[in-house]
């Protein structure tokens, strides 16, 4: 908002300061643990730094005082990839279906909302109980996979609703008039147009699975995923090794987020040239 003279009103500076404080509040603590993860070997969980070293990162790999971190990572990453793929496939299909009214559409939508707002741990207990009473073994790739989908799918669908809300269906009609089959329309017209949205869904699918805790707790069976491992470390590890793990896993998340956002930016830039995309997403 500008005043008549084109100068910024005082509220701009007040709000900008407030925003800066919020960003400091958001990132400050994280930056603290990144710094503390480079504590010297004698260092403690709090400042001051007693030297600078990679000691706690080495500790993480050798796992002398920690649990099975490498094992947890070797489960969490494939799980996140599977959840991501399933979230993308189901959300795109669901988004396409919800463009038209269909019987039971409202009920299905309510189920999506329940899936989103139901306490995660309650869903976890339910899935755990169901597997137990049906005599099925709980594993990260079965029960935990399903449990995580109840968290990632609502986000994926809401994003696809927003994407398809702005999608112009005349492109499809044009393709159909030119003789394209249903598969061709999807592959050559629809998917390329909504690709940025699909990447966003993939980002949510991967990261929300990779960090999921409450729904996974009762459903991962006898082995831990990474967040469960971190959780058990918060109760019995009292050295900066936990900060080192925090730094590693957050850095990994940042790489994934950076890759997804750059891919979206690249597509937008190609599409609109240097000009700015007008629509928001």
């Amino acid at each position, binding site marked *: 908002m500008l005043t008549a003279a084109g100068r910024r009103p005082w509220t701009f500076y007040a709000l900008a300061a407030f925003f800066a404080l919020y960003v400091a509040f958001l990132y400050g603590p994280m930056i603290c643990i990144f710094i503390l993860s480079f504590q010297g070997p004698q260092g403690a969980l709090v400042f001051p730094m007693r030297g600078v070293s990679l000691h706690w990162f080495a500790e993480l790999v050798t796992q002398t005082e920690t649990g099975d971190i490498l094992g947890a990572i070797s489960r969490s990453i494939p799980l996140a990839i599977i959840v991501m793929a399933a979230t993308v496939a189901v959300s795109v299909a669901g988004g396409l279906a919800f463009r038209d009214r*269909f019987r039971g559409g409202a009920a*299905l939508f309510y189920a999506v909302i329940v899936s989103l707002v139901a*306490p995660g741990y309650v869903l976890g207990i339910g899935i755990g109980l169901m597997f137990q009473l049906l005599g099925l073994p709980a594993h990260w790739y079965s029960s935990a996979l399903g*449990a995580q989908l*109840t968290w990632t799918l609502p986000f994926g*669908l809401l994003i696809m609703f927003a994407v398809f809300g702005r999608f112009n269906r005349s492109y499809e009609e044009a393709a159909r008039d030119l003789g394209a089959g249903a598969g061709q329309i999807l592959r050559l017209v629809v998917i390329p147009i909504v690709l940025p949205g699909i990447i966003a869904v993939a980002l949510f699918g991967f990261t929300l699975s990779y960090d999921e*805790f*409450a729904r996974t*707790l009762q459903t991962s069976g006898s082995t831990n995923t990474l967040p469960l491992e971190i959780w058990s470390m918060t109760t019995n590890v009292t050295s900066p090794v936990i900060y080192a793990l925090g730094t590693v896993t957050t850095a990994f998340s940042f790489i994934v987020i950076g890759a997804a*956002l750059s891919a979206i930016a690249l597509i937008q830039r190609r599409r609109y040239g240097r000009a700015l995309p007008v629509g928001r997403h």
Partner: protein
Amino acid sequence: MAPLLAVLLVFVVAPLAFVVAVSFFHYDNFAIIPAFSFENYADVLTAHLTYELYVTMIWFSLLTWFFTLIIGFTVAYFLVFHVRNPLIAIGLFLVCTVPFWTSNVIRMISWLPLLGKQGLINSALLATGVTRQPLQFLLFSDFSVVVSYVHLFTIFMIVPIFNSMSRIDRTLFEAAADAGSSRWQTLLHVVVPLCKSGIALGSIFVVTLVMGDFYVVKVMSGGSRASIVSAMYDDISTLLFPHAAANAVILMIIVVIMVSLILRVVDVRKELASQR
């Protein structure tokens, strides 16, 4: 649509049905026994602890709701109405959302080196002579619990409010100004009413997340407080599945009541439909 239906039926509807069914079961030290009894509900509802847990968590969710609403509204207002360049606005918006895609457990424990007795804040206060003794209430207290909630969940307010605000027609500001409205009056009588659906959606997210919280209360209160869900967790570790299930059903009912109260104030579907 069929795969969506399948996932929701198998992993949302069926599990919730199992929770409801098991909440009526009997149990002994070794197994759960199919039955239809209200014994578990009687146990949960007659325990003094239950009320304490619900009062605590409702209080935490109100406090968190209040602070996330104020912060989320202000941040969204700044991004939508004060940042001129849309690319910068999107960039700053992403700065707010990036932590959402990282681990909540890590973000929570990152408060420990700041708030502790020997933490950064206390050290700074002692060094500058503001206080003589470290402030005890900073960590392992209700204060640190609420700080963590606000830290983790404000994003859930920012996004829906940002969305509603982006759709507001800017000429309304001119109209309000021409009609002699002050900045404050425009905010209260134009912006807030038009953000109602965003505020309601954000409130639903924040309230349900706090009510269903497990680890924040457990870690940040230093074990002095328990949440409804952590009480369930304790039940399940001792194999009291039906007891936990009855508690889960009660929690779901309370959450549904809270959500419908919010929806009663704001008819989200009508609001969303009218903005299309």
